[in-house]
């Protein structure tokens, strides 16, 4: 599937901090420059921007996100919460949250280039949905280990979400459980995203 390959800083200036897309942070000056003349945002724009935040953070196409929304809608429970759980359990995102990659596009490339094992088998699909008790390891060759080691060394030491366990010496991560909503890696109002996709015609 195609993905966004354009300028990233432009996106974070518009949408705010997107840790999955880039480790850069929007500066104060750029935010002021970007404010449009009309301070009042329409309801549609508020929902659209929230949806775009989600899309660019997780590196999804519009079609992929729409599929996830439909799956979440069929599941029991809050559609928004289920949507975030589905996105957080993607393999590329799990690698990013473990610190094995600095951004989700980097994690995506690691997976695509077959540097990652899940339960002892190569998985090269970034959208692979991880399950509780999945073991994620670096492929046992020097190139793969070096790539992941570099990321682990340079990733900021943030508190690991409670649904993941990392064994840095073994380049291994474990998925303990389905993510709890308070550990989601993006500050977002998921209800706005569901409202964007709910039929507004």
């Amino acid at each position, binding site marked *: 599937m195609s993905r966004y390959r354009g300028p990233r800083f432009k996106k974070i200036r518009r949408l705010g901090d997107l840790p999955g897309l880039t480790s850069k942070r929007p500066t104060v000056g750029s935010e002021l420059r970007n404010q449009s003349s009309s301070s009042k945002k329409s309801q549609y724009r508020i929902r659209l921007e929230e949806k775009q935040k989600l899309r660019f953070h997780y590196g999804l196409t519009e079609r992929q996100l729409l599929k996830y929304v439909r799956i979440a809608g069929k599941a029991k429970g809050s559609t928004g919460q289920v949507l975030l759980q589905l996105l957080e359990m993607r393999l590329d995102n799990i690698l990013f949250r473990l610190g094995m990659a600095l951004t989700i596009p980097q994690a995506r490339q690691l997976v695509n280039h077959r540097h990652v094992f899940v339960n002892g088998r190569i998985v090269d699909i970034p959208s692979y949905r991880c399950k509780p008790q999945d073991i994620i390891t670096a492929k046992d060759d020097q190139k793969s280990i070096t790539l992941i080691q570099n990321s682990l060394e340079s990733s900021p030491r943030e508190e690991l979400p409670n649904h993941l366990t990392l064994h840095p010496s073994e380049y291994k991560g474990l998925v303990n459980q389905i993510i709890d909503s308070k550990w989601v890696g993006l500050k977002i109002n998921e209800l706005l995203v*569901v*409202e964007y996709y*709910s039929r507004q015609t």
Partner: protein
Amino acid sequence: MMAASVDPLVVGRVIGDVVDMFIPSVGMSVYFGPKHVTNGCDIKPSIAINPPRVTLTGNIDNLYTLVMTDPDAPSPSEPSMRELIHWIVVDIPGGTNPKRGKEILPYIGPKPPVGIHRFILVLFKQKGPMGLVEQPTSRVSFNTRYFASQLDLGLPVATVYFNSQKEPQAKRR
């Protein structure tokens, strides 16, 4: 056993947003036409124009109050009208249906403008026959907990909720 049936209400945040934790003690089945309402199921607004068929279990000597409310009005992300009250019926004898009770507020069907709304039917057991019950002055900013405390109804004895969202209109050429 009964506690297990509350679980979808916790997941759907019905317990918390509208009612407090309770133990169901009365059976309540709800149908919109042929469609049986189960917790979290989708009901199209077009099939919920008329009041649902509600059947209660329980002793005919007991009286019950039924309210139907929407905690997501006008939109789930900003529920500034929480709760929008759709229906209130009091003095429903056990083992019968709301037609045998006294309608305080007439039924209006779901009309969610945006987003997926929860519509919650809450059943309370009365301590005795209701005297004069005032009709709420407005359908918006209703509070189920406050209503129950005003009428001394205590905790609910049964609750079921369904989801509903705006239906797509036929595109005109």
